[in-house]
């Protein structure tokens, strides 16, 4: 993401427009007393009625002009804030999306959401409305000071002293608030996370009738959020009245000090009245200063949080000069691959080659590392030792696009977006997919019938994570989504577990038709892998057994045991 001022400078013509409008509006503001002065002095008192229409028109022009330029100013600032906020949000989003999977495993969804939404909103505000007020305050104060300086330069030090004091307090307050706002922004993210988890896990909450527990949990964070907000209020209460005080005291002090200099005959009484009048004009900007410092401080805290995410580099980087394969055949090789997380071995010395068009079956106990193989194939992680190759090239030397674009993975944990079924299936290839292709993929996944029975067929909107569909239906849609990509390699990570046997068999038949596609099938059911060209059986991250179905049965090892459990009694019947 770029620095803040680069975003702002990009929109300089609009800021310039807003500033010019602001100056005109302020100018008209200053002009108005002059007009009334002329009306009173020259028309009213001297009775020169001829000039009246002109002057009255000038007043109307003054009002209308203020309205027009005030509107341009306000709207342009709002527009700028929105535009830049949106640009920043986009940049953050695309940055976040590009981070590696392990970052998401460690960072809460709620937190990232809070950054992309709430924190950007704060900056959006400061670049828009709040920014406008800051500039207005500065311009206003400067012009008043200029006028006062002309009246009596010595006495100008009074408001200047007041202003320096205010600015100092504003800076101190900003510093104190900064810390509080950082905590608030943090707690906001936690609160979001707690609520997010509860909503996402609502089925579990309800199944255990744990609503009370969840309410208590939320209450504790809600209270903490409240306390932090009170802390913010307390800080504000400590400093803010100072600005009020300074604002109201300034005219009084000016009168008295000005009075002394009148008494010393350094100034005439008329000038004193004008001088006091000007100091009154400083009241609102000074009182405003407190609020502005508050808002700016909150935005700065948000900026820091955002910067932290922006500084986060993707752990995996694409090779700078990636090898480009003209055509991916789909041969996948693991050569002595080992992988560990926090020094805990997940995979150890895994080697296999799946030639184009062949099928590899992977079985193994829960937690034996099956899904990790899939993650390595897609380069979500890099192996600690060894190499993963695609068509003989180390995937580290290829672009992400090519690696991931050659693998179509049906994940174990089905994730569907709350969008239409068609959009879900098209995902990843949205532009280039016709209805026929969607239908074909759905038919492959045995999903066509149930989808077309739905009222809106492929245009049916499914809930988040596919709520409303059964587990098997979700799995079939995610199979259709992978199939439709027509990738050289198809990976099915335990993705038929929720399907009934008949449907599973139909899908297997379809899979057999995909002669040119390399297939990797991870499953617990023997029926899913028995036809594979090679089956590897993992145990504790190592390959314990490998071979074809028949070979493994003969070995009478782990695979055979599984077979007996699943089919044992069947053999008797047969």
């Amino acid at each position: 993401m770029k620095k803040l001022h680069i975003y702002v400078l990009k929109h300089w013509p609009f800021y310039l427009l807003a500033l010019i409008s602001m100056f005109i509006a302020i100018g008209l503001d200053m002009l108005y007393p002059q007009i009334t002065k002329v009306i009173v002095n020259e028309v009213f008192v001297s009775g020169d009625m001829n000039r009246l229409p002109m002057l009255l028109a000038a007043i109307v022009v003054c009002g209308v002009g203020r309205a027009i330029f005030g509107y341009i100013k306000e709207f342009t600032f709002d527009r700028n804030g929105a535009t830049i906020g949106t640009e920043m949000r986009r940049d953050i989003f695309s940055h976040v999306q590009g981070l590696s999977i392990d970052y998401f495993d460690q960072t809460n969804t709620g937190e990232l959401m809070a950054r992309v939404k709430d924190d950007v909103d704060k900056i959006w505000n400061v670049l828009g409305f709040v920014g406008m007020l800051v500039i207005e305050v500065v311009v206003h104060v400067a012009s008043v000071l200029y006028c006062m300086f002309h009246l009596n330069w010595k006495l100008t030090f009074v408001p200047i002293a007041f202003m320096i004091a205010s600015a100092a307090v504003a800076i101190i307050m900003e510093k104190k608030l900064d810390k509080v706002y950082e905590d608030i922004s943090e707690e906001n993210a936690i609160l979001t996370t707690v609520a997010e988890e509860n909503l996402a896990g609502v089925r579990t909450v309800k199944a255990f009738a744990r609503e009370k527990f969840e309410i208590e949990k939320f209450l504790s964070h809600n209270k903490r959020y409240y306390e932090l907000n009170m802390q913010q209020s307390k800080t504000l209460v400590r400093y803010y009245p100072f600005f009020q005080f300074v604002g109201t005291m300034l005219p009084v002090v000016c009168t008295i000090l000005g009075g002394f200099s009148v008494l010393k005959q350094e100034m005439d009484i008329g000038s004193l009245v004008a001088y006091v009048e000007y100091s009154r004009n400083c009241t609102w900007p000074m009182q405003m200063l407190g609020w502005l410092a508050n808002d700016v401080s909150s935005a700065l805290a948000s900026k820091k949080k955002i910067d932290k995410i922006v500084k986060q580099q993707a752990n995996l980087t694409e090779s700078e000069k990636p090898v480009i394969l003209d055509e991916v055949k789909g041969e996948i090789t693991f050569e002595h691959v080992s992988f560990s997380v926090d020094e805990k071995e997940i995979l150890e010395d895994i080697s296999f080659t799946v030639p184009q068009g062949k099928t590899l079956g992977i079985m193994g106990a829960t937690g034996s590392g099956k899904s990790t193989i899939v993650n390595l194939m897609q380069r979500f992680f890099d192996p600690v030792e060894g190499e993963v190759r695609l068509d003989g090239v180390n995937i580290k030397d290829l672009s992400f696009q090519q690696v991931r674009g050659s693998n179509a993975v049906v994940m174990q944990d089905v994730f569907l977006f709350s969008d239409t079924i068609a959009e879900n299936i098209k995902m990843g290839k949205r532009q280039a997919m016709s209805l026929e292709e969607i239908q074909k993929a759905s038919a492959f996944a045995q999903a066509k019938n149930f989808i077309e029975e739905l009222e809106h067929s492929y245009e049916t909107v499914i809930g988040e994570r596919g709520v409303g569909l059964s587990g098997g239906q979700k799995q079939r849609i995610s199979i259709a989504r992978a199939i439709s990509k027509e990738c050289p390699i198809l990976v099915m990570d335990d993705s038929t577990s929720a399907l009934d046997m008949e449907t599973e068999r139909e899908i297997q038949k379809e899979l057999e038709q995909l002669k040119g596609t390399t297939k990797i099938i991870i499953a617990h059911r023997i029926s899913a892998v028995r036809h594979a060209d090679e089956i590897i059986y993992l145990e504790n991250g190592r390959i314990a057994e490998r071979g074809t179905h028949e070979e493994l049965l003969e070995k009478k090892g782990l695979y055979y045991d599984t077979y007996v459990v699943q089919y044992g009694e069947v053999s008797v019947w047969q």
Partner: protein
Amino acid sequence: MAVNSFREDEQVKSQGKWKVIVRLFSYLKNHIKGVIGVLLCMGVTVAISLVNPLLIESAIDDYIGVGNMDGLLKLGIFAMVLNIIYIIMVKVRMYVMSLISNQILLKVRQELYEHIQKLSFAFFDSRPTGKILARIIGDVNSLKDVLSNAVTTLIPDFVTLVGVLVIMFLKDWRLSLAALCTIPLMMVALFTIQSFSHKRWHDYRKKSSNLNAFVHEDIAGIRVVQSLCASEETKETFDELTEEHKDSFINACRIADMFGPAIDFCWGFSAMMLYLVGVKYIGFPEISVGLLVAFGTYINMFWNPIMNLSNFYNQLVTNISAAERIFDILDTEPDIADESNAIELPDIEGAVSFEHVSFTYDEGTEAETKVLEDVSFSVKPGETIALVGPTGAGKTTIVNLISRFYDIQKGTILIDGYDLKEVSLHSLRKQMGVMTQDNFIFQGTIRENIMYGKLDATEEEMIAAAKAVNAHDFIMKMEKGYDTELRERGAGISIGQRQLIAFARTMISMPKILILDEATSSIDTHTERMVQEGIAALLKGRTSFVIAHRLSTIQNADRIFVVSDNGIIESGTPAELMEKRGAYYRLYMAQVV
């Protein structure tokens, strides 16, 4: 069921702006003492700020004019004291007011959250999580300033306004009328602006909620996005949504920003009218110079509070749509709630019977399709029932109905002879052990996740449950054992392991009726068999419903129900069904061959 996606705006029932405002401010009622205190403080501060100009006047006329230096000094000290009182009052006012508004926010948010907990699945199923979140977090936050500004700006400005009006009319009613002739015009303008901008702000909130929903899904589904190389596409969607979000904001500003200018505009005409009438039609000597000048000042004093009030009103209108969205949820009645005369379900034996049960998810809509029609069966305590059949036939629906996650349209479901609708939800669900297809793992330690099933469980109970489902070994292999922190959704451990932890969580609650909805689908066969033995020992004699596709899981059941689109088409012991050579036989052979 109409499902809302991130592409569509939500439908929020329009509740009438004033009703919402009244309801919002009724929260202040509980803090009436504080509000009175704030008002008193404000009375003092307003008085002092009115005295300040008088002090200046007196300083000039009474002391500086006559050269009384000591008096001037005394006056200065007096002013100082007065303003110190002022600053204290401001402090008290701010503190009390922020206490009140933060407490109200705390309360509103908690009320909202508690209410959401009561709502049934239909509510959660029909909208993305991100949209509900937007209401709990963003919408509530946006009420903060409205509440405090309502008390701190509304009242003093209103008082000033009335005061100025009275003074003006007392001084000269003709000039007053001239100066105020644009008020009707202004009223019309402000009313028009606000009614348009209200609609647009509402729109903005909806777009903001859409954006929230999308960001939530994209981050939650980041693996799918990256795996499918769909980042470009999701970025496009995001761009569209942010663009709409931005446009809706700019659209709202386009109207809402006219507030100030409209007042400036009217103010210009007022000033013109004042001088026109004052100078041309009444004129000297009936009106003195002083009066004319004073009126100029009064006009300024008059328009300032109007400006403030309209700013406040603008803010109110902006944020009222947030309040509307909050009340919208608070007013959503849970579809499934305890009857007023619901009884506590006593400890059950576990007999379950369905009598002519019909059910559809989308009752009363055009898309209405019966998921279950006239289904009847009865299960004796202690029986294990396996539900098999094609996906989408309604197996999960049947077990969901037993926990009363949805209400049936026709028929009755009885547990130990108690009609489900007549017992309290809590007493029912706490006796059920349900393991759904999506096993949600919470952030926190493994211990906390297992204990979720029984909050006051002992260490022994927890370990026994973990051992029963064969999770103990893998947990102990982890560096911190049961104290291992699990990340969001259980990231970092395999799905099978997540299933085992969820399983232990269900076991620890020692349910009377156990429902396993594909609970072992991600667990390997060996582990599964050990799990089965473990739970059989732990839950001896309890009723259970098992949905599974693996033969090895099904074969141990006492009875098998074959569920298809037409309801339960076959039931009987595994051996009976094999002999019958019907639907079950076919399913069976499919896996074997």
